[in-house]
């Protein structure tokens, strides 16, 4: 067992974890952040995407011990009193159906807009390549990210 200190959505946690425990399992099972789902076991789907010190990571591809000393933001930490502009844009553009990919999409999109506040549609599509959605055909996800960008999400 290893001891780790992690800040998740603004709250400090100190825990003992098995060295092999994945960050996503730590978040879901130890911290109780079930807003971050798991869609695969090969780091292909992006459903588990969170921000680690501001950068998007697939939390199934990171060990909990590697998150020691970092700040993690999950979908549950995005709304700050009001919905985050990306959350609002996903709602308004109907960018989700079943919603299983949505937490990861929103987290990946927030990192995308941080790096490139005014992406073209092609840049959005390429930037979200690591996040799979089986329901929407992506069209409305692209629209939502574009809308959030226009609303100035990165500012």
């Amino acid at each position, binding site marked *: 067992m290893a001891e780790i200190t992690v800040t998740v959505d603004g709250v400090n946690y100190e825990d003992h974890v*098995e060295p*092999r*425990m994945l960050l996503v399992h730590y978040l*879901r099972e130890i911290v109780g*952040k*079930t*807003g*971050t*789902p*798991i*869609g*695969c*076991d*090969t780091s*292909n*789907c992006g*459903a588990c995407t969170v921000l680690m010190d501001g950068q998007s990571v697939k939390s199934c591809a990171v060990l909990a011990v590697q998150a020691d000393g970092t700040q993690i933001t*999950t*979908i*549950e930490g*995005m*709304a700050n009193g009001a*919905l985050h502009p990306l*959350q609002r844009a*996903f*709602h*308004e553009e*109907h960018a*989700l*159906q*079943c*919603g*299983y*990919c*949505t*937490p990861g999409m*929103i987290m990946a999109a927030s990192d995308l807009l941080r790096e490139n506040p005014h992406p073209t*549609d*092609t840049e*959005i*599509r*390429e930037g*979200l*390549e*690591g*996040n*799979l*959605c*089986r*329901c*929407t*055909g*992506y*069209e*409305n*996800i*692209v629209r939502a990210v574009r809308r959030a960008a226009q609303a100035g999400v990165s500012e």
Partner: protein
Amino acid sequence: MTAQTEVVQAPAPELGRARLRKEDARLITGQTNWTDNIRLPGMLHIAFLRSPFAHARITSVDVSAARDEPGVIAAYSGADFAAEQGSLPCAWPVTPDIVIPAHPPMATDEVRYVGEAVACVVARDRYAAADALAAIEIDYEPLPPVLDIRTALDESSPKVHEAGNLSYDFLFAQGDMDTAFHDAPIVLERTYRQQRLIPAAMEPRSVVCSCVGGEFTLWSATQIPHVLRVMLALVTGIPEQNLRVIAPDVGGGFGSKLQVTAEEVLAVLIARKLGRPVKWTESRSEGNMTVHHGRDQWQQLRLAADADGRIRGLEVDLLADMGAYLMLVTPGVPVLGAFMFPAIYKMDAYSFRCRGVFSTKMPTDAYRGAGRPEATFAIERLMDELGVELGLDPLEIRERNWIKHEEFPFTTVAGLTYDSGNYEAATAKAKELFGYDALRREQQERRESGDPVQLGLGVSTFTEMCGLAPSRVLGSLAYGAGGWEQASIRMLPTGKVEVVTGSSAHGQGHETAWSQIVADQLGVPFEDIRVLHGDTQVSPRGMDTYGSRSLAVGGMALVMACDKVVEKARAIAAGMLEVSAADLEWTPGRWAVRGDPDKGVTIAEIALATFAAHALPDGVEPSIDADATYDPDNFSFPHGTHLCATEVDTETGFVKIRSYVAVDDIGKIVNPMIVEGQVHGGLAQGIAQALYEEAVYDDDGNLVTSTLADYLIPSASDLPSYVTGRTESPAANRLGVKGVGEAGTIASTPAVVNAIVDALRPFGINDITMPCTPERVWRAIQAARGGDQASAAEQHEARQSDQTQGNSPRGVTPGSGEAQQTGGTA
């Protein structure tokens, strides 16, 4: 109690409004209730050990060592369940002499596909359960696999089941085929391949079961909580009244969660054995192997036509891969397609044969479209071939054969009566949005200039049957249940409304669309309505969600229940207003005295008066709640014209979709935003079949595409942007609605493949086997160019061992190409 209310302006109709979805609030904030989120006190975790062999006899199983592993509570083999596990149900015996082999949830003496469960461990956490699997000892005696259904019916083939490899032989014929084919000026013969697909909903399956005092609650990521409850009761013998099934938020289904699974049954049995709650959540690789697959047919087609292109007859001969067992509706899926091969076309005669064949692979079953995409693909590919034969534009040959808009209602040669449609209108609109004529000119220019990037235009003028289904028709097809749907309206004392639907949503937006329908019917605000579903205790009756049935059937049940509420409210309003019920007039939301509209009561006031029940007329029960069950008397028939332009790089084989126009006629629209989303998602899945996806087994029967690294679900950068449009021929039901869940998937696959083949016609190519990967396209071009002997030989080989080829991880393409140039004119 007041009997006077202000006359309120009737609210704007909800039907047709792009209401934002109610369900989003929890989905965008991470507050969703997925099955895998559930944690019950004392809950244990199950891990399954699965067969590494496609076909083998189990000679011994020893789980005792696993029981000694840390944190392990129990370990079981199939023998431990033998007395109680029964057989997983098949509800669709399509012929009287169909072979339905026993299908124990956990294998006891023989395994028939890689991934079949053979033992399990129950432990304190999922890690401990997974670790302990290694301590289980199993001996197998390998048996020969059966991997190609084209040879599985040969005498010499090894057998999947003792009874042989043929499950059923379904025949349907209408009209005189001999006359149709005799002396026909044109006879086309083609063989098409519908590759095997993995539905791959983003949420993996997950099951939680608790057993308290003999009462079971099962949470499952399922599309069918109601059907599942009945089936679990029948399989396990647990009295139905002691079983509650809950489908919490479900992360997509596409047919894959229309199933009664081994893991669900075993979770119930284990919870019963241990008296403790248990959970199982699959990994993606486990899911790719063991969630039922879709499609997988070989389609042999013959079409006879007159010299002007008029179709005389169509003969369809299918081999459909059932996989190792028949699951819930496995045999019915290709048979459902039987009614769709004639599609929108008139013809004198039609014959359909489908043989369901066993193999040592994961069973197939419903996947978005279920039988209809397969049929639509075949006929729409064939119509292009017929056009080429006659030198006619693909739209022209279709128009010569399709049912004219003034001919509706029209009974097709397959026996379906299409209530409405207008193929001319949808096609005209699609052509305009697409810029058809200009693209044809560009195609011609590129052909003439020998451009290495050729342009192809693909057409799909599809229809489908949905709104499953009239119970009588299902009965005549030997389906094991009805096709009705249930709705309940509960009028709360504060004027708010609870709507209970038997249609269990998993991404379709029922909570929003159902609110819109009820708001219009009862004249209550959209915001005041709450829709409940997916829990057999809350919603005791239902047939669930599949086959694009929710709106056309479940929506109609809502309307009928609302009618009853309004009628019951009338009697109470009459008492409140002290007039005769016959003198009242309903405008949505309010009963008022005819000729004196100021004198009236709102539905909310009536609800409160009903709750108090102080002054109800004699003999009137103190409730205006109502239930209704709707059984449709026909299917609904969405249709549309989809046009796809592809740029095919003849040097690399790379296919780029340049534009895609989908004009759909799905009747009246409840929520255009949701409709458009369904079309987009459907298109993506149909395009994925055309270009990317295939479940591939190797020569030993191992699933090669068991991860999302190998099974290519397209990402945002792999797909185009879509142009959507609509025409509207209302269906014959009161809402005028048809259904839209599967249309995009059914229509798009042939549109894309037709476009690719159209681009390559000048090379003499008339087919590319799906998925049309760059390598397959490139090889087809090479072979057509006269190619070298080696590539021709490779192709031949590829055709012999089709099931081992296919898609591959991004960037690597070891699949083999296949150009079909056989078949022709008689």
